[in-house]
């Protein structure tokens, strides 16, 4: 394992310190318990707070700022944060309108946020993000994972919260965006958790892993490497099979890199996916291409489609000013 680190145990703290220093105009870092918050607290709005294991940067810290999150709680690498972090962040950012937690649907994240929610002295709601169609859903299981669609949920809910909407409205929008969003990913390599020091799984020189999550969990099946168009066709089919959009629907297409795949390839994937969506009679009216929900140094990418409507498009377009997403101001 070769990484830019000093000591494995200090990686997270040093990286957070660098992040806060590089974006000191936007965010402030609180240590022990760790959370990142907007440098300016906004009054009279629902406090939108997310968090999760580290290693997915810019998620979530990169989305703290106007029009998105009020705070983010970073756990250790790939490990959900602990309730004391959520409590401290909520304490700092609650502004009289309650707290909305945005939580990716993993047992660890769900339980830690739940314990925080039980202890929280403010009205609160939780939006569970579960956009990963690689995972089969059933009533007996814990359900689908939350992956790159989280960025879209955070963006749209963050926009609504900025208008002064109440907790119930923010929760309802988050759930609605989640229902209209589907993702699936593919890995060309594993990632290496720094504290472990070697790849989480081994992939042969001619293999890829379909349906991976964002923690180096192996996917649902391993396949020989294929042309990008064939890979994209499978991802798009799974996504559309889930969303079942009517012809003529308007969508947002997010091509998300996992950290080790260059932009050149991500745009090639975009080209391939966009062609397929057009062929299905869909209109791509908004796009995002880049590393937004990563898995350390994993080479790979995921596709996310969000079914837009007038309201969702408006919340996507509204001004946002965070370290990793910025427009309109």
């Amino acid at each position, binding site marked *: 394992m070769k990484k830019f680190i000093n000591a494995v145990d200090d990686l997270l703290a040093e990286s957070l310190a660098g992040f806060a220093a590089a974006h000191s105009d936007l965010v402030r870092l609180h240590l022990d*318990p760790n959370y990142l918050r907007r440098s300016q607290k906004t009054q009279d709005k629902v406090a939108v707070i997310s968090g999760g*294991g580290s290693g997915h940067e810019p998620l979530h810290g990169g989305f703290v700022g106007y029009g998105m999150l009020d705070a983010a709680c970073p*756990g*250790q*690498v*790939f*490990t*959900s*944060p*602990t*309730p*004391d972090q959520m409590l401290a962040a909520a304490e700092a950012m609650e502004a009289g309108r309650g707290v909305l937690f945005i939580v990716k649907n*993993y*047992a*660890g994240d769900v*339980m*830690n946020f*739940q*314990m925080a929610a039980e202890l929280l002295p403010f009205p609160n709601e939780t939006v569970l993000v579960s956009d990963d169609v*690689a*995972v*089969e859903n059933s009533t*007996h*299981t*814990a359900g689908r*994972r939350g992956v790159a669609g989280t960025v879209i949920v955070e963006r749209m809910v963050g926009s609504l919260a900025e208008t002064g909407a109440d907790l119930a409205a923010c929760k309802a929008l988050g759930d609605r965006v989640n229902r209209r969003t589907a993702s699936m990913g593919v890995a060309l390599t594993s990632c290496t*958790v720094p*504290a*472990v020091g070697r790849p*989480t*799984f081994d992939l042969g020189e001619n293999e890829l892993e379909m349906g991976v*999550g964002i*923690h*180096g*969990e*192996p996917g*649902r099946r391993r396949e020989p490497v294929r042309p990008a168009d064939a890979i994209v066709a499978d991802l798009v089919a799974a996504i559309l099979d889930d969303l079942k959009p009517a012809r003529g629907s308007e969508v947002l297409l997010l091509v998300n890199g996992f950290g080790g795949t260059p932009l050149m390839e991500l745009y090639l994937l975009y080209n391939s996916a966009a062609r397929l969506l057009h062929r299905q009679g869909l209109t791509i009216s908004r796009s995002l291409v880049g590393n937004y929900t990563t898995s350390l140094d994993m080479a790979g990418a995921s596709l996310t489609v969000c079914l837009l409507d007038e309201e969702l498009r408006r919340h996507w377009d509204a001004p946002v000013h965070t370290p990793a997403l910025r427009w309109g101001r």
Partner: protein
Amino acid sequence: MKTEFILQAVQAVNHAILAHESEIESLDREIGDGDHFINIKRGSRAIAEMRDELADLPPDMVLQRIGMKLLSTVGGASGPLLASFFLALAKTVKERGTATLPDKAAAFAAGVEAVKSRGKADIGEKTLLDVLIPVSQAFTRLAAEGVEGAALLNELKRVAEAGMLSTRDMIATKGRAAFLGERAVGHIDPGAKTCQLVIQTVCDLALH
């Protein structure tokens, strides 16, 4: 149960976990995300370092402090589950003490119930509950039958090991391994392994 014994158990468990690093770590790399060993090591070390501040507290408060420390240090899925176990254990110990074996078994059972409701899981889902539930059932039954000492402890160890091994052939429906479907079959659940190791270590300590 004395504070003295709990603190000795904490040290013994900390050593046992460190001694099984590669085994536990590889289990979570195979069907999880590779952090389970680091998570429990972080928690176990944090508790081991509390020795001085815990030494003069009564057992229920010691267990409560351990639960809170696990809650704020472990993270992941295992953090809230282990914390819930200790917090419920502490509550029951405080309420009815640990004078008799059935008292101890009841406290353990309360801990396991808390894990079940926190994780919304039950036996057969390829999690640490596949160790905790059978051990709790055996403990309650044997305590009611008056079995004690080496006979009890060795049986609990056996049941823990059998529970841990039983996860190998299961399909997971909870936790990260659930994302793998059939592919998780053939691998032991890391949380189950950890719980089995802890139970074995504590029983061995009590045997001496």
